[in-house]
């Protein structure tokens, strides 16, 4: 689970990749060519970003004729969306602040 999360976080930590991913979320199935148009980056760069998103399980590809179509993998973010994961992070953060507070209470 942790490894999957790290892959997802890494994949989405890049603004260009996040833009591509958000566009696929918004517009649905797209080809590399369509994704490149108006993106401000080259087609090989878009392909590379898509490869990273694919390895993180965030997008799927589907060849159709000479084009490859990309779409979001709808269950990809499920590992991050898990309530227990979110709450655990929340409480760990709170406990950090609690520790800070306890130190300050000594003074």
């Amino acid at each position, binding site marked *: 689970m942790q490894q999957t999360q790290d892959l997802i*976080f890494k994949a*989405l930590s890049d603004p260009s990749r996040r833009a591509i991913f958000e566009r696929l979320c*918004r517009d649905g199935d797209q080809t590399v060519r369509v994704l490149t148009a108006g993106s401000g980056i080259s087609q090989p760069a878009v392909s590379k970003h898509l490869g990273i998103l694919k390895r993180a399980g965030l997008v799927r590809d589907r060849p159709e004729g000479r084009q490859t179509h990309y779409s979001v993998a*709808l269950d990809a973010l499920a590992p991050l969306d898990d309530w*227990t994961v979110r*709450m*655990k992070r929340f*409480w760990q953060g*709170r406990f950090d602040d*609690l520790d800070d507070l306890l130190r300050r209470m000594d003074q």
Partner: protein
Amino acid sequence: MTGTLPETRTVVVERDFAHPPEKLWRALSEPHLIAEWLMGNDFRPEIGHRFNLQGDWGGAIDCEVIAVEPGRTLSYSWNHVHDDPDYDLTSVVAFTLTPTPAGTRLRMEQSGFRPGQKRAYGGARAGWPRFLDRLDQLLVRTG
């Protein structure tokens, strides 16, 4: 994101603090101290007392004190009513303090209930932009 989710889930976070239980108890039970590490609140350590925890997102968590044993245990309900099932939550938070040679072990156990749901394709897609906003915040916090 299809299928029915498990109905109850439990999160346990435990940590050893280099401070005595009495001090931990103050941090857990005095409103101005709770505000320092958790959230703004109108807490009182009385069973049945209803209070709110004010989230930094503008919303509030509805709570009711379930158990108070000074220096040892504290538990309250932790409910958040929301139209979005991802945020809708009925749960109980229980803190347990155990003295250790070096201080105190604090255990937080949150048992939650979230209604099982089937997510339609459209619904999942509509939920993603909001999820990405949350992810952004998470990346900022963990970055």
